[in-house]
């Protein structure tokens, strides 16, 4: 296979030594079938062992290698060298503080993830000694949202999260929606109380960038709009006599 040399600029930042982030350039002889993640591993193994970045599976499952490549939030294991120009710029995911080099601090999203209660909530006990039958049509309703790998590319693309980080954000809200529309779940009202509050779905202005950049073809923007309808319905229902305040 033929090799192709890329000029890769990588944003470097060591909080113990640097006052601010800066770019370093590397010339990387890439194989034709390499992904950007392979090029980063080459840099780390052959050129500069101090480079820090997250990765694990190299097959679009773990969601840990999300970075900005030429300004777009992508999974670097899914972004191929052959699809890129000779000059490539790699930066950590936008809208997150940098921990070191290409590693970002995800504490904010991890805290918000708890708010979504991303698990099945039952008020009635589940069926005993038998399966919980779920028709295929019910599965298809939420299946796409289960594909999220928490890579946080959508948070980097979201202009509302960039403006105001108190916004709960696309991936977490889409995950909450995944459980809200699961026929086995009974926790929708519990979640809406939190997620249809000010910092929840209403901060979304339906730009749709989250869905465009999602490497797993999840459509968080659609989830958020559906949650807005649920939120609006629940608001009026609780105003009815006997409705929960």
């Amino acid at each position: 296979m033929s090799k192709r040399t890329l000029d890769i600029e990588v944003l470097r930042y060591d909080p113990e030594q640097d006052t601010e982030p800066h770019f370093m350039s590397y010339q990387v002889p890439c194989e034709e079938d390499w992904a950007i993640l392979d090029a980063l591993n080459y840099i780390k193994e052959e050129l500069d062992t101090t480079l820090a970045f997250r990765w694990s599976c190299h097959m679009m499952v773990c969601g840990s290698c999300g970075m900005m490549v030429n300004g777009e939030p992508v999974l670097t294991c899914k972004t191929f060298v052959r699809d890129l120009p000779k000059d490539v710029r790699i930066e950590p995911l936008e809208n997150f503080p940098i921990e070191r080099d290409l590693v970002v601090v995800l504490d904010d999203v991890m805290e918000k993830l708890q708010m979504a209660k991303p698990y099945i909530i039952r008020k009635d006990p589940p069926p005993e000694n038998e399966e919980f039958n779920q028709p295929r049509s019910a599965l298809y309703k939420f299946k796409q949202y289960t594909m999220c790998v928490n890579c946080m590319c959508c948070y980097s693309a979201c202009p509302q999260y960039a403006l105001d980080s108190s916004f709960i954000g696309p991936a977490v809200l889409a995950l909450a929606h995944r459980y809200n529309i699961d026929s086995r779940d009974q926790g929708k009202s519990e979640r809406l109380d939190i997620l249809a509050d000010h910092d929840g779905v209403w901060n979304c202005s339906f730009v749709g960038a989250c869905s465009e950049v999602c490497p797993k073809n999840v459509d968080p923007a659609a989830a958020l709009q559906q949650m807005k309808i649920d939120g609006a319905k629940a608001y009026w229902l609780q105003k009815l006599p006997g409705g929960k305040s």
Partner: protein
Amino acid sequence: MAIAKKSVVWGVFAAGGTVAAFLFPALIALFGLVASGTVPEGLEYANLHGFASTWIGKIILFFVISLALWHAAHRLRVVFHDFGVRKDKIVAKAVYLVAAIGTLLTAYYLFAIG
């Protein structure tokens, strides 16, 4: 925490958006023709006046016009936010006031048509 009141204005925004997306391109095209002097059959003044004189016509026109106003108001509020204006309460009051006045005027004028 509780479900935010924003859901109320979002409700009329969404309804107005649906109405605007479905009806306004056709209405703009048709009334564009009228304005340029080519009146399509059925859109003559007398016909439209007759439509606005019936109760069902008044109700339809009221919802189409007022929902579109609330849609525009909420969209403008979001645009202000996107452009970095951080005075949401003032912006919200201003745009919704215009929509509310527009709604009242729509009701008044429709009622006045004999």
